[in-house]
């Protein structure tokens, strides 16, 4: 039995898929190098990421399957789920056979898995569009820390690029230690860590207070429903919100 091990990058995964095809091998699993466990009966084949091979696979997906499939694959990958790479591999294998109708073959467990992962990731990305909270820093830059379950930074950045085009801003994924820096129509995503607290603009406190007060005031007392609130806005996201859910005026 053969497992393919790739370096954890999207290019690495696509390269592994390329190799599986051209070596006529049918790896049982494709795993990221940080999620392997030793097992005597399994042969590990290490795959080195190769930009050119990755691009060929990507364009094959777009042309032979569909753009929608390429997007599903990327999103499933961004879930960072240990079984994502294998599911993607099998999904694509079937996709190269069936073309774009692969997305109707929902009875296939791998197709279904890729769809499910895609959905989870896009749902979190969608939620994050609302839950990002910028703070205005002394130097006029807007800064927002986030800690999403999935690696969705790259998905949400274009939204803020359209919306906040005339301002400079940073969205910082503390969990993955990466940040998107935007200025004047351009952005980059780079590894990033903070060494200390950031100095806030004076106005900032006033608006934070206004927002907190507004938030506490609009809940209807006879309808307080913490369960529902948590269902929509899981507690793990609360840390970086300015408002403090669960603190409605008792008056």
């Amino acid at each position, binding site marked *: 039995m053969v497992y393919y091990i790739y370096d954890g990058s999207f290019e690495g995964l696509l390269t592994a898929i390329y190799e599986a095809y051209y070596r006529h091998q049918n790896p049982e699993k494709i795993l990221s190098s940080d999620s392997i466990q030793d097992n005597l009966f399994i042969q590990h084949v290490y795959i080195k990421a190769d930009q050119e091979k990755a691009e060929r696979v990507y364009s094959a997906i777009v042309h032979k399957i569909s753009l929608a499939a390429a997007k599903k694959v990327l999103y499933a990958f961004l879930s960072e789920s240990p079984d994502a790479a294998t599911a993607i591999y099998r999904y694509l294998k079937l996709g190269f056979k069936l073309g774009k109708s692969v997305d109707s073959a929902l009875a296939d467990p791998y197709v279904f898995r890729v769809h499910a992962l895609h*959905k989870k990731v896009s749902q979190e990305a969608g939620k994050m569009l609302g839950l990002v909270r910028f703070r205005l820093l002394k130097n006029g830059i807007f800064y927002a820390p986030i800690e999403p379950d999935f690696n969705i930074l790259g998905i949400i950045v274009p939204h803020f690029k359209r919306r906040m085009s005339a301002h400079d801003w940073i969205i910082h994924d503390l969990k993955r230690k990466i940040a998107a820096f935007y200025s004047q129509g351009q952005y980059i995503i780079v590894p990033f860590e903070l060494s200390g607290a950031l100095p806030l603009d004076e106005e900032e406190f006033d608006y934070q207070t206004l927002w907190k007060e507004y938030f506490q005031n609009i809940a209807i007392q006879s309808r307080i429903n913490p369960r529902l609130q948590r269902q929509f806005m899981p507690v793990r996201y609360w840390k970086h919100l300015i408002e403090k859910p669960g603190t409605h005026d008792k008056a």
Partner: protein
Amino acid sequence: MDLHTKLKILGAAAKYDVSCSSSGSSRRNRPGGLGNASLPGICHSWSDDGRCISLLKILFTNRCVFNCLYCVNRATADVPRATFTPDEVAQLTINFYKRNYIEGLFLSSAVYKNPDYTMELLIATVKKLRNQYHFNGYIHLKVIPGADPLLIAEAGKYVDRLSVNIELPSSQGLQLLAPQKNRDSIIRPMEFIHSKILQTREERKLYKSTPLFVPAGQTTQLIVGATPDNDLKILKLSESLYKRFSLKRVYYSAYVPVTQHPNLPAISSPPLMREHRLYQADWLLRFYGFKADELLDENQPLLNTEIDPKSAWALRNLHLFPVEVNSADYEMLLRVPGIGVRSAKRIIAARRYSSIDFETLKRFGVVLKRARHFITCRGKFYGERNIDELTLYQMLKPSSSQSSGAKPSSEQLTFSSLYPHLFQPQDFHTVITGEM
């Protein structure tokens, strides 16, 4: 009075307005401008009562010359009063928006001095936001009942959505509880907005440069449980509003007892379950192809609070079931309890490729606990045989642990992706979690 106090008073005063939706408009940002309106709408937070916060929802003022009995702001009520200036509203909106607290502004108002005067203040505010602050985010504006149509036409040029509140489902109700409002002052503006939307749409076909007019359409809201009007009457009203004025949404708001009066019902808590059932039934009207007459009739004018309206309908129509999932048409699949829009679509898509087995249904999100009584799968029936309607009713009823507390009444948007080069317009069609 400082801004903090004003926001407290005028935010709290607006909270009974249920519409949170920021959807239906895709306004683009312009160079140097701030913001855009996102088609599927975005929730930015959820308040302690579990409602989505999307827009900064405030009243311009709560000083009112009207005296609607169900309203905290009625002229005779003893409450603290406040009034914003157009610039204060604009500043708040801009600064909240930049910090990504909100998706835009929902501005409403009590009737200050008279309807036209108030409407002019609201227009001044949205004009300032658009022209002076270059704000391109979402704006929803309430139409003040009785305001001049010319003012409504002016307002419509700057906002994404207009709404006129129906408030109460019948003229008698209005007479009794909101004597200064009447059916005409509500229906006429709706009619006017509708015809203006149609006219603009035609003109834009000919001249691309015709300015937009409320691109996200109009909605309305009505209060449930403040008058004796039954659910049949309410649903019929909604149905005709959707049909006649192409309303985007009718919002239902359970009456929150804020005061006592002989003309008001004596209840201690808002009828949340009834509100929830009305939303479900409304959903059936809009997305499931049901008619109000199918759900209720004169003998049975109230929605069952114990089971959802679709199950109730199916139980009355057992002769139509079971249906075979591998051959039933889409319309019929949608009518099966436990099959929602998403799972029905999946079934239709997947069976083109291969016939569907029972296991697959589960993965498609079909709630088999309910659906199995109404379907066959490859000819096989998985429900209980020979059971009567009553037993089935008991089985469809949620257990008491499940039914405690009201379920979410707002629909949530499952939003997809934004990678521009991977962008697919059909992403916006996945809307439903209100699966039934």
